[in-house]
């Protein structure tokens, strides 16, 4: 039987004004387990806390109830008080008689009556409280960053800067991501490579950072502070530590006609390739689907020209196992496929391109060395039509596009239009838009410059159809402001394709048990207050995997994610929330209901041996909860059909005791 002490606070006149505190203290004296009851003006004050401490010592209390303000206000205070007096802090219950009683009722009688009932409920609950100790787990002081774009690069640099080792896993042969493909960046128009490539070099030279390029995360186990990760390092058939990146093999390779992924297939690359000149690591990779040696065993030219002897046709995929304390997801985005958008003739004409392709066309390192040429015949276009919101802001029922705004298209389209007019002033540039959205520092000024200084023709309305006719593209569109149909003979049509999360994000989310929204963007722990943390403890979000973002936003989010990781890795031990679920193995029938509702993947099943009558044993499948991962929501307790699952601190018996006390 507990020995409960009740402490009723006046809170000056805040409570005492509408609640007869002495009567509450008196009434609660008769409750089961209560051995001491008193009231005081300010329980949270030093003097009030001393009353509690003395009473705990004097009356040998095993649990206390404080009738005071909201537990959101002073629960922590009173828990500390209890702990200071040698009582388990989780043996404290608060009856909220201020915010939920004295402040909302005016009448002394009803106020007092309700306060007594709330006090009784708290006493009933504390009678069933058990001392709880938060679990502790060690922290592996190493972080994993999945994705080597600007988000991953910045996060890794910031974590490494704090002195913690970081590994970057990138599926492509080089880090750099989408930003490496861009030409200029809005709104400052500095060149993407000039600000990105030095960062890539920093990553390569940082001794705290390891880069696993051409690699994928294969398996994730463990939990916050202790993730076990398997990384598959795909065979690139070149020894990474020997290759000098001289490029002799690339020049000599006879299999030259393979679509160049880096230039979005607008030109070709050999079977052995380095994605671009500033690639990090600057190491050649053999495409096994294109290499004659790997396919048919004939050729071997690259091995002969390689002075360093780095070519290894027998290389196999390698699995690397490593432990991490924290994982940052930075898987980024891709433009959506234009296959379904037949009206824009993307499949029919080479001169209908996406904005990312346009980016490559104007990039000095791109397939045309930066000269704006039509992909079909190499002529310079005289009339360019930009179409915004292709696949963005679609109807919810539309199967073609996305419901959300892709956020970056308004600005990059303004950039493209402006740069085109700047370099080729004799070009007519039209931009069709639904709305121009330019929130952001210096964004609207940038857009207005495109219109006012550079004479880009912005037309509110959507393009209905693009028809290739001869060497022209007939663009049919509506001008909503002057309510007219427009027919434009364009040389080039550029589609601002919506962006979507990278395809690797969904399987990764399953591995990490991190939640995603309906669009496959990772969800954050709280949309406003915890925007860089995933609801899964120890998993953090950086960049466009969480939602469409431009570069400045991505970089700031990357820094924020890094600071959260550093905060985690700086700890030697993690203290959990002790109010977690636990399963009574004798009652568990192994049905998996709890596992399915757990948003954190905290529940696993194991086969355990149980002693049965007549000295026999039986192996049964039972649930077990990892207290380091469980956040204590209690979804599993209700899903459990056998009643085996319960929540510490909010046990079934405790809540029922409260219900009973209230309904007496």
């Amino acid at each position: 039987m507990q020995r409960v002490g009740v402490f009723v606070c006046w809170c000056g006149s805040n409570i005492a004004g509408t609640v007869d505190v002495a009567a509450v203290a008196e009434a609660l004296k008769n409750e089961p387990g209560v051995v001491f009851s008193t009231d005081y003006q300010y329980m949270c004050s030093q003097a009030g806390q001393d009353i509690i401490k003395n009473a705990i010592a004097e009356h040998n209390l095993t649990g206390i109830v404080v009738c005071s303000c909201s537990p959101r206000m002073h629960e922590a205070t009173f828990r500390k008080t209890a702990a200071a007096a040698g009582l388990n802090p989780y043996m404290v219950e608060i009856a909220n008689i201020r915010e939920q009683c004295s402040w909302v009722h005016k009448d002394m009688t009803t106020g007092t009556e309700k306060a007594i009932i709330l006090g009784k409920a708290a006493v009933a609950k504390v009678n069933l409280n058990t001392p709880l100790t938060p679990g502790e787990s060690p922290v592996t002081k190493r972080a994993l960053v999945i994705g080597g774009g600007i988000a991953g690069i910045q996060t890794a640099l910031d974590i490494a800067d704090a002195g913690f080792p970081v590994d970057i896993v990138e599926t492509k042969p080089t880090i750099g991501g989408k930003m490496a493909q861009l030409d200029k960046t809005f709104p400052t128009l500095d060149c993407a490579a000039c600000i990105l490539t030095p960062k890539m070099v920093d990553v390569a030279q940082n001794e705290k950072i390891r880069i696993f390029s051409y690699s994928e995360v294969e398996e994730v186990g463990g939990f916050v502070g202790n993730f076990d990760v398997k990384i598959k390092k795909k065979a690139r058939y070149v020894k990474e530590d020997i290759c000098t990146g001289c490029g002799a093999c690339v020049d000599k390779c006879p299999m030259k006609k393979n679509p160049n992924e880096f230039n979005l297939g607008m030109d070709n690359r050999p079977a052995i390739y380095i994605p671009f000149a500033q690639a990090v690591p600057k190491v050649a990779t053999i495409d096994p689907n294109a290499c004659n040696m790997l396919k048919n065993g004939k050729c071997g030219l690259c091995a002969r020209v390689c002075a360093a002897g780095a070519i290894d046709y027998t290389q196999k995929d390698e699995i690397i196992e490593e432990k991490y304390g924290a994982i940052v997801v930075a898987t980024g985005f891709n433009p959506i496929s234009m296959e379904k958008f037949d009206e824009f003739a993307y499949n029919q004409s080479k001169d209908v391109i996406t904005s990312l392709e346009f980016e490559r066309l104007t990039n000095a390192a791109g397939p045309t060395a930066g000269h704006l040429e039509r992909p079909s015949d190499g002529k310079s276009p005289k009339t360019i039509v930009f179409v915004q919101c292709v696949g963005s802001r679609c109807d919810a029922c539309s199967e073609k596009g996305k419901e959300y705004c892709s956020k970056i298209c308004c600005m990059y389209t303004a950039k493209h239009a402006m740069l085109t007019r700047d370099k080729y002033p004799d070009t007519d540039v039209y931009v069709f838009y639904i709305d121009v959205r330019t929130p952001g520092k210096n964004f609207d000024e940038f857009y207005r410059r495109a219109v006012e200084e550079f004479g880009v023709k912005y037309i509110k309305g959507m393009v209905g159809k693009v028809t290739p006719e001869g060497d022209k593209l007939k663009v049919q569109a509506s001008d909503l402001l002057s309510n007219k149909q427009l027919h434009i003979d364009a040389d080039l049509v550029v589609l601002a394709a919506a962006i979507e999360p990278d395809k690797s994000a969904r399987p990764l989310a399953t591995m990490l048990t991190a939640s995603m929204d309906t669009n496959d963007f990772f969800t954050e722990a709280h949309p406003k207050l915890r925007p860089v943390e995933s609801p899964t403890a120890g998993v953090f979000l950086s960049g466009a995997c969480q939602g469409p973002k431009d570069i400045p936003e991505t970089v700031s989010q990357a820094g924020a994610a890094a600071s959260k990781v550093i905060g985690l890795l700086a700890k030697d031990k993690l203290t959990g929330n002790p109010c977690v679920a636990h399963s009574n193995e004798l009652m568990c029938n192994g049905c998996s209901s709890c596992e399915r509702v757990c948003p954190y993947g905290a529940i696993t099943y194991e086969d355990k041996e149980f002693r049965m009558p007549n000295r026999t044993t039986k192996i049964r499948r039972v649930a077990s909860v990892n207290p380091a991962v469980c956040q204590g929501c209690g979804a599993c307790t209700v899903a459990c059909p056998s009643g085996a699952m319960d929540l510490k601190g909010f046990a079934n018996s405790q809540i029922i005791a409260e219900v009973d006390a209230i309904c007496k």
Partner: protein
Amino acid sequence: MQVKEYKPLIVAFCCNWCSYAGADLAGNNRLNYPADVKIIRVPCSCRVNPMFILRAFQRGADGVIICGCHPGDCHYTSGNYYTRRRMAALFSMLDFLGIEKERTRVEWVSAAEGAKFAATMNEFAQTVASLGENKRLEDLRCKK
């Protein structure tokens, strides 16, 4: 014989992160609602076992309301979706047993919606009061 004024007994389950904070905000703003409403704090609305609701009705509660974060805002990402589904099923079963649908409710109240909390409680208490005492599930053996 003096007739005692009828006061409904209402049990409100509030999730710790949104609705309990919303109830606190109603208090901070001194927004009145009937003292008949007694709040029980739970970590998440999905912690509310149908058993608790049955128990409340057995013990003579006249109405039960569950308050949680708005869909999509759950502190535990998906808890309130479970609540929404479970309670829809439970309430229709209770309706079948004679506990009118008006006596049970799920309401989304965010931590910023003190006014909504008070208004909801006022309106719910009034609705329950107009229905009168719950006699269908009340178990007199529970009343000592």
